[in-house]
């Protein structure tokens, strides 16, 4: 039972990694389309690049922890 819970927790954590990114990028693209824009605003770029920066930092931190 405990092993199953660990597996499910692992599954949720991995799925959450994708959900986090989709939750940031997709709405921005949808909003731009809905408003008929072909370019993104500076704020939207800041969100998208900030998300990528956060992933870079998290990955580097986790790798450093495991050193």
């Amino acid at each position, binding site marked *: 039972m405990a*092993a*199953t819970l660990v*597996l*499910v927790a*692992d*599954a*949720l*954590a*991995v*799925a959450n*990694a*994708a*959900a*986090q*990114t*989709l*939750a*940031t*990028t*997709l*709405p*921005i*693209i*949808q909003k*731009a*389309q809905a408003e008929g*824009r*072909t*370019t*993104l605003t500076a704020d*939207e*770029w800041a969100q*998208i*690049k900030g*998300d*990528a920066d956060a*992933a*870079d930092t*998290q*990955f*580097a931190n*986790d*790798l450093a922890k*495991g050193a």
Partner: protein
Amino acid sequence: VTDLFKNHGTKILGALVAVIGALGDVQQLFVAVDPNPRHIALYSLIVALGSAVIRRGFSNTAATVDTTGSTLTTSEPGTLAPGDTIKVTEKTASKSGPPPIGAWLIFFIVALPLVLGLVACQSLSFQEQLAAAYGTYTTVERAADQAYVSGSLPKAQALQAQALAKQVRPFLDAAQAASTSGDSTGASQDLELATTALGALQRYVDSQLPAQKGK
């Protein structure tokens, strides 16, 4: 059919759940006029849960004990009494167990942004395509990170994935800067290079997962 469900029931159940989740994702990404990120995330979770059940099914199969060569000594045939002995001869498994759950799941998760990218590139402007490429980059890096944290991706391979990611990011940033400054030719070239490097990163992470290495 009864034996099939008896021996593989958990795996079949998991597969059904995962397929339902995958169909939901496909519906949202390809069919829905206005895809909802929350629904996509929910369907991804269903795929992940289905994969966990499949994994559990493989664990059950792997736990089956092969009693060939074992002996049972009883004082009275057909019954067990104090003093009777059971000798079970353990056999070495002929193949390794199923890959870690993270391996199966991350395979789905890494594939998801690729689908998103394909959908996004169908009718989007250049900047929207670039945003989708950033999203793919972020998701693949998070998936690689999660694989490393969960133990599915060894450190050497995680470092290699990080090194590949570091090659992708400058092209994305250069394409974004060029696009913002009106250099459409340079931006297109940088995005093309970023997309090529991003594909290499995705393929590398996929290929290093135990589920893929075991094939």
